[in-house]
């Protein structure tokens, strides 16, 4: 109830107008949405690619942060970034319990991720990506990431 009221308002706005490089793909219910993002400048790491984000909302969204991951299919790879694991899990303080504010929304998360990619110059995965991807069984919200490098 709490989440759906807010999400229906967000949806109206998203259907009306979105920043360049961000598109609404699927929002059939108030549990899971798909969004596409593209990097708009010339960054060679991300040129010509479209990335797909899956948002999962709990009942108490936006008090609680949504779970946001990149998803992979034939036409959507997982973007290379030192804070994005190859299974699509994102290490971003904004999406963490401590960093989240209920003032954020789907659009602002997309914009943040877009600018996180835009400003990145390292064509690499986080350290320990292999073993993290192999062993992690936790949901993103239960992982305690350490944000020592917010500049990247």
């Amino acid at each position, binding site marked *: 109830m*709490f989440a759906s009221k807010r999400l229906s*308002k967000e949806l109206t706005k998203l259907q009306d107008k979105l920043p360049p490089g961000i598109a609404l793909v699927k929002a059939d219910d108030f549990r899971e949405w798909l969004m596409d993002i593209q990097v708009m400048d010339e960054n060679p790491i991300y040129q010509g690619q479209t990335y797909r984000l899956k948002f999962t909302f709990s009942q*108490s969204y*936006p*008090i*609680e942060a949504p779970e946001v991951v990149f998803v992979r299919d034939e036409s959507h790879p997982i973007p290379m970034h030192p804070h994005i694991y190859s299974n699509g899990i994102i290490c971003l303080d904004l999406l963490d319990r401590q960093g989240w*504010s*209920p*003032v954020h929304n789907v659009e602002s998360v997309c914009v943040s991720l877009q600018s996180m990619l835009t400003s990145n110059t390292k064509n690499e995965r986080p350290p320990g990506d292999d073993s993290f991807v192999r062993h992690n069984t936790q949901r993103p919200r239960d992982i305690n990431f350490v944000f020592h490098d917010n500049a990247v």
Partner: protein
Amino acid sequence: MDSDNDFNSSQASGDDFLDDQDSDLGLEDDSDFDMDQDDVGFESQDKDMGPRKQAYEVDYKVFDPQQIQASQDNQIDEVSSILGQPPEATAILLRHLRWNKERLIDRYMDNQEEVLENAGLGETAATNPPKIAKVAGFVCDICCEDDANLETFAMKCGHRFCVDCYRQYLYTKIKEEGEAARIRCPGDGCNRIVDSKSLDLLVADELRSRYHELLTRTYVDDKDNLRWCPAPNCVYAVECGVKNKDLMQIVPTVHCECSHDFCFGCSLSDHQPAPCALVKMWLKKCEDDSETANWISANTKECPKCNSTIEKNGGCNHMTCRKCRHEFCWMCMGVWSEHGTSWYNCNRFEEKSGSEARDAQAKSRLSLERYLHYYNRYANHEQSAKLDKDIYLKTEKKMQQLQNTTGMSWIEVQYLDTASQALQQCRQTLKWTYAFAYYLARNNLTEIFEDNQKDLEMAVENLSEMFEKPVDQLQGLKVDMMDKTSYCTKRRVILLNDTAENLKQGNWEFNVKFS
């Protein structure tokens, strides 16, 4: 035994790792900040720790909820009179600065206004208490409502939201995330803490009691020399002066009133003699290697003589095949009679000659074998401890019957309880000696350690075996069992003292680096 352990009585200050904890609050660091460990304010009421403290023991005190509350109140009163603030405000200030009395007083003397302001107790808060208001043209950034009759609330930072959203936010923080003293304003990037006056205004009674409960918890959470007992539903807290930086030199096992033994350093169950960092590394390894190691902990084996399947149903390693009466050792599958005279050869992994290790494949096989050797024994004691307990519970029942039918007194059967507890404790220690040994470099000290381990292992198996005797024989074995019990305990103390002394002096040489 030299019990002059400087970890135990140390009241030294000057820790700096604590400062890091505060950085997320947006407080600037005081580099000269001293964590004073003697300010807990508990009345001195030393527990009877026995006649003489052993090298592996640390000083600690257990506190019940009333005592925790009382010491909290003491400290509030004390600081209250120093600052000249009412107790209620002092409590808010202390919680705001994580119960660091000195830091609070310093800052307060430095800049009273700022300290009060940051804790939500500023001038304006006094003359202008937080209130709910309707604001023309307001749109709530959380629910996006813009109804003109919307009730809204904002703290001094000015981040205004509708009351419903604010309540929902606080409810989630308190109820689901268990936060209390440091809930931040819902505004993006705002570090303002929701003060308790604002909280009282916004939350329902039912949530308020939970909130105050959580506030009390922060007293123990924030103090480095206090820790909750990790046992489920236990309400006690333990005070101990051992600090994080000491944990490679000492294993601070404490005993809670609820009878749970745990490590003050990491809150895991008692893991002496292994230091916390080693335990962490070992558990991680076991988790990573669990697939390879799984098969070993299986509870059935074949008799080495007649191949019939034998299920281990007691804690003892001395196995007798029901079918062919062959006696063998569960751990090494060797003939038991050989163990009887030449004693245990199965606690120690014989390092293979270097020639075999030359081949890379053999090397990795060898390293797996080596790990499995230690893991097998580690897991065996864990499993045996459970089985010993089962057997004791069964025995206890029978002893009860025996008491009822023969009129034997309750006190006369207590030696069984003592024996069972000693057995559990020794198994727990033995279990961790194998993790410890796995990381030890080979040298003289390690040899001595393994001798001690061997002696303890033997004593434990001898005692464990007695539990498997038929119940009607148990009464007759009382003296023997009591002897074996005290021998076990003695061997454990010897082993723990030896490891603790050497740990304290940094004598152990490990084959890995612990971070």
